[in-house]
């Protein structure tokens, strides 16, 4: 997959100072060490990172991830989602100087190294422009539709699309071993509902064969 995204050379005075070579599944560790595993678990394909600099201002770092599918891009985005959306891409959040969004197969992060109104404005402009250049969209994982939203009365719901038992255990511990046999080819969803009777956790798995359990 080599989906090209038109890069901006400058935004609000911040200039791209040179793209880092695209990283693939074998080389991504050089860029981010152990954090790479998180993306690999979601069928990571390629990362392109660019630094934007402006004299006397903090830098902006743009990372564009090509994932295996829109479901994977959605999974990466939602696993760490915690801030309000800003209507960029198919799902977005912005807080602490970090913009994250997904669209189609692509997941994007844009981070300002220090706070500031001007840098945050530049981040949002960058995000919108990059989103516009990403061709196509994609659907969130169909497995999410299996969740019993209409059968439960709840006040709050969190749902995570997963492919790794390590990530599953971070949200709801099952077992040390990968007893559910999660792999990059398996789709799983974990949902947590806050109800008047307490929290309810629901897990669902789907193998590539389409069997639902």
């Amino acid at each position, binding site marked *: 997959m080599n989906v090209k995204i038109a890069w901006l050379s400058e935004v609000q005075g911040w200039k791209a100072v040179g793209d880092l070579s695209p990283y693939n599944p074998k080389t991504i560790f050089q860029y981010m060490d152990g954090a790479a*595993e998180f993306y690999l678990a979601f069928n990571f394909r390629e990362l392109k990172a660019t630094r934007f600099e402006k004299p006397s201002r903090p830098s902006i770092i743009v990372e564009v991830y090509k994932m295996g599918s829109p479901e994977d891009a959605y999974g990466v985005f939602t696993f760490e989602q915690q801030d309000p959306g800003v209507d960029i891409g198919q799902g977005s959040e912005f807080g602490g100087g970090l913009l994250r969004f997904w669209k189609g197969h692509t997941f994007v992060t844009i981070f300002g190294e220090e706070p500031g109104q001007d840098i945050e404005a530049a981040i949002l402009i960058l995000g919108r422009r990059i989103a516009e250049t990403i061709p196509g969209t994609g659907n969130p994982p169909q497995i999410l539709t299996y969740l019993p939203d209409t059968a439960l009365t709840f006040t709050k719901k969190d749902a995570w699309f997963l492919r790794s038992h390590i990530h599953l255990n971070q949200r709801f511990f099952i077992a040390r071993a990968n007893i559910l046999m999660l792999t990059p080819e398996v789709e799983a969803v974990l949902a947590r509902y806050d109800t008047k009777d307490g929290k309810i956790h629901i897990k669902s798995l789907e193998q590539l064969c389409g069997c639902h359990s």
Partner: protein
Amino acid sequence: MKAKKSITRRDFLKGTAGFFLASTGLATTPRNAKAQIKTKVIVIRNMDVINPNSEIQRNILQTMLDEAICRLIGKKEPQAAWQSMFNKTDIVGIKTNAWHYLPTPKELEGVIQQRLTDAGIPLTNISIDDRGVLDNPVFKKATSLVNVRPVRTHHWSGVGSCLKNYIMFVRNPSAYHDEGCSDLGKIWTYPVVKRKTRINILCALTPQFFGRGAHFFDRRYVWSYKGLIVGTDPVSVDAVGAELLRRKRINHFGDNRALDVQPVHISVADKKYHLGVSDLSRIEIIKLGWQEEVLL
């Protein structure tokens, strides 16, 4: 009429935190536990070590490290303290941490290197490295190590700790990520590092107390604690560092907000690999310098 004493939120947090720690066997130094104290950890702070422009004041940092080392080792002069830990013939690797968003400050690396040269070790026998340690010629023949890194939350291990800092001494770090990186202590039993570490330093100048995923730094959860946590026992240093972050979360959120992963590797390093003491009730925390909101 005598004014009714009101309980502040700080009082309440101290009280409930103490109850929580006692109920989990992690209480800090009750009187009858003094006989069981086995390790010592120094927590030193200085309110001026970071200036209003967020610049680290190297001279103040040097003074902090000197005082911590002297108090830890029991010497009056820094040079004597460092010479008691290192020989002139030692080849020393300073294992630092280069994580882009919160690296070991260059100023701290510098003051450590300075004290090693003051102790008589030639500069050519000292190296500062992180990701390249396995191929670094000085580290390859190192007889001693200094372990130094910033304390922060960590996506895989719960806390970026002294124990975690040695993961670069293996060729396959990802093999140690399972179960919250519980087996990090095993790395410390390998010949490349076994029994070489003379001092462990958690840089707590600007710790990060809450996580933001595998790859991101969230400055909303960073604060200027302006401290160093120093000890010879890496497990004890990490236990104190993890506790500092936990208390900061309570102070900030009003509760101990759950991390992605609990730092179980610290207690495993104690119970399974016998690398040190993780039980806070058996650690003497000596607090030096600036005490405002010390949290510990």
